[in-house]
């Protein structure tokens, strides 16, 4: 079964696309071919939380609840320096490697 990362933002259009693009590129580079990265509307997140293949949520917005999977704040992908983005990408990759 493939593993799903959802990237959530308010409109599901501009902000999450930036984060999705950055994570996708890195996941591909690392050869993690079983990982799917999908951008979604935060309003639609409940439908994804029930999925057994969900391994991570990256949110561009503050989250006021807890999930059964790790959650990361994706703001560095939008405004962070290369170094700040690398720190976050490493955290994401750590979660993915633990799960293999």
């Amino acid at each position, binding site marked *: 079964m493939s593993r799903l990362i959802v990237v959530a*933002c*308010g*409109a*599901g*259009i*501009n*902000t999450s*696309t*930036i984060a999705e*693009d*950055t994570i996708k590129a890195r996941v591909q580079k690392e050869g993690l071919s079983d990982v799917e990265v999908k*951008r979604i509307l*935060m309003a639609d997140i409940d439908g994804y939380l029930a999925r057994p293949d969900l391994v991570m949520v990256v949110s*561009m*917005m*503050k989250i006021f609840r807890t999930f059964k999977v790790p959650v990361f*704040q994706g*703001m560095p*992908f*939008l*405004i*962070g*320096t*290369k170094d700040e983005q690398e720190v976050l990408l490493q955290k994401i990759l750590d979660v993915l490697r633990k799960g293999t």
Partner: protein
Amino acid sequence: MLAFNESLVALNLDAPDARTVIDVLAGKLHGQGLVVADYGEQTYQREIDHPTGLPTKPFCIAFPHADAKGVTESGLALATLARPVIFKNMGDPDEELPVLLVLMLANRDPAEQVQTLRNLALLFSKPEKLVALRDQPTAEAAATCLRDELDLDHDAETRGGVSERRAS
């Protein structure tokens, strides 16, 4: 294709609040036939539910947008603000940010604009570039500066100046 030219720039805009900034920029996008007439209203409602202020350095910016429904053709509008206008922080809606630069990206299809979005994120992380953009003396100069930063003329055979070749 992303429409952007000096007609879509509000330079040194003196606005009392976020609503005014959003309406001015939406009006410019509508004036070019890129978005529906109530795109400003849509965007403002979206801004209340999901704010787009960003704590960039050395000053904060905002990145308001609504979803693709109101967009006929993707376009970008820029405002540099004469005085700070409060937007809420996207990462923490309880926090108010004094914003000095606003970029409204009316995006019909994000897949179409991935490279532009990448370049926007690069711009957001570079203080000296944000300062340079804000310091441009004319709308034309600001449009050229932003076109360069976002590499909007990448596909063009020749630099077409500030006018969009929308017919192509």
